[in-house]
């Protein structure tokens, strides 16, 4: 594929902005650009759209037709597959008593999306429970992707406030249901990921009905509100601004995550040792 270098750099905010980006951010931005170009090219070939026309999206059936074109399933956690079709690399061992910061550095990195999401929650004056939920809401994607709200809540539940766990568990449900009053749109990326004619499964719809009248509805809703705005390839984020929130609300076990005999300790150990065959 030919890259229009000038358009690509301009799209990222110019040469100065590109110079300030990390290699990972550049790679992600390039990948995104190429995916967009590829999608546009494929769509144009199919006669779905012309340059300058609104993007068209695949159907659920078209997305399902791609399953047997991959050597892995889409739901596999990030630590178990190589980036962009490459082989996996050896990963740095975890410390003997790993902390949440160690997992951010060695297993969840670069974690740009969750850091951006939590940064926005912090800058817009949200509660510390919500800031923490935003910081952690997608970390479990390193372990597993389907039902990541439930898996994520289970992973963190022994260590964080009940409201934060609730927000993580149910953001997965609420992201499919726009709420203009709360400031949540249905994003185009879900058309891309799930298909334009996607209907959430019945259990998600039932959960939504239950959540709508729950006194904590806004907790997961605020995670989705920040979620949408956290896909900026140029954003500069780090975990440092959240050290105090983590210190106040994340009960770090003295034995280290994975060795405290909590109900989710095995999940942390799996993240720590993803090359273990059994």
């Amino acid at each position, binding site marked *: 594929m030919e890259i229009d270098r000038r358009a690509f750099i301009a799209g990222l905010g110019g040469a100065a902005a590109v110079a300030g980006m990390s290699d990972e951010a550049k790679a992600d931005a390039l990948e995104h650009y190429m995916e967009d170009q590829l999608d546009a090219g494929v769509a144009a070939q199919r006669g779905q759209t012309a340059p300058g026309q609104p*993007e068209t999206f695949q159907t659920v059936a078209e997305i399902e037709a791609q399953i047997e074109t991959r050597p892995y399933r889409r739901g596999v956690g990030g630590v178990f597959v190589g980036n962009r079709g490459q082989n996996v690399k050896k990963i740095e061992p975890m410390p003997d008593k790993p902390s949440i910061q160690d997992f951010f550095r060695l297993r969840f990195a670069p974690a740009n999306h969750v850091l951006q999401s939590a940064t926005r929650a912090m800058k817009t004056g949200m509660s510390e429970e919500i800031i923490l939920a935003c910081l952690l809401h997608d970390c479990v994607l390193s372990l597993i992707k389907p039902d990541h709200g439930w898996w994520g809540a289970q992973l963190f539940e022994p260590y964080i406030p009940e409201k934060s766990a609730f927000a993580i568990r149910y953001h997965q449900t609420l992201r499919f249901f726009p709420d203009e009053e709360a400031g949540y749109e*249905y994003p185009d990326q879900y058309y891309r990921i799930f298909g334009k004619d996607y209907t959430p499964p019945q259990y998600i719809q039932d959960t939504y009905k239950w959540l709508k009248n729950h006194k904590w509805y806004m907790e997961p809703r605020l995670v989705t509100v920040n979620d949408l*705005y956290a896909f900026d390839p140029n954003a500069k984020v780090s975990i440092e601004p959240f050290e105090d929130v983590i210190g106040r609300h994340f009960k770090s076990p003295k034995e280290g995550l994975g060795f405290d005999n909590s109900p989710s300790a095995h999940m942390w150990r799996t993240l720590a040792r993803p090359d273990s065959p059994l």
Partner: protein
Amino acid sequence: MVARLKARAPQLLTAGAIAIASAAVLLAQPPARTVNGLQVSVKSVEHTAKASLRDCPPGTNTVNAVQRPGDEIAVVTVDFKVMPDFKPVMMKRPTATAADDKVYNTSIQFVDVGSVPEYSCQFVYRVPQGTKLKTLQIEGASFDISGLESK
């Protein structure tokens, strides 16, 4: 002299038309006002099928809102200038009121409004097709935007 003017007539007419159109847009724009130490000027209203979801001031977020059946997306462009008396403040999301008095919310949030001296933001409103917006409300200040809607 006359021949030269005749030769330039199409260019002069085009320039005149542009000047008239620009003047009409300027006349339709509500006057700039100061809100929370920010000079606020509403520039335009457009109706579209897709719009970027970028906070205010905008970054380079890659997620978009897309049209759903029966809806369209109204995009209100607003310029901001940070005035010398500005003090950091949390601001609520602006709302837009349609000609039928229905109020619409945007998902675009003010984040760090004093972080850059001047910027332009696009507030995205999902409205039923054919809806004309009447006013934009920012922190209690109301801007008449009916003149910015195409007839």
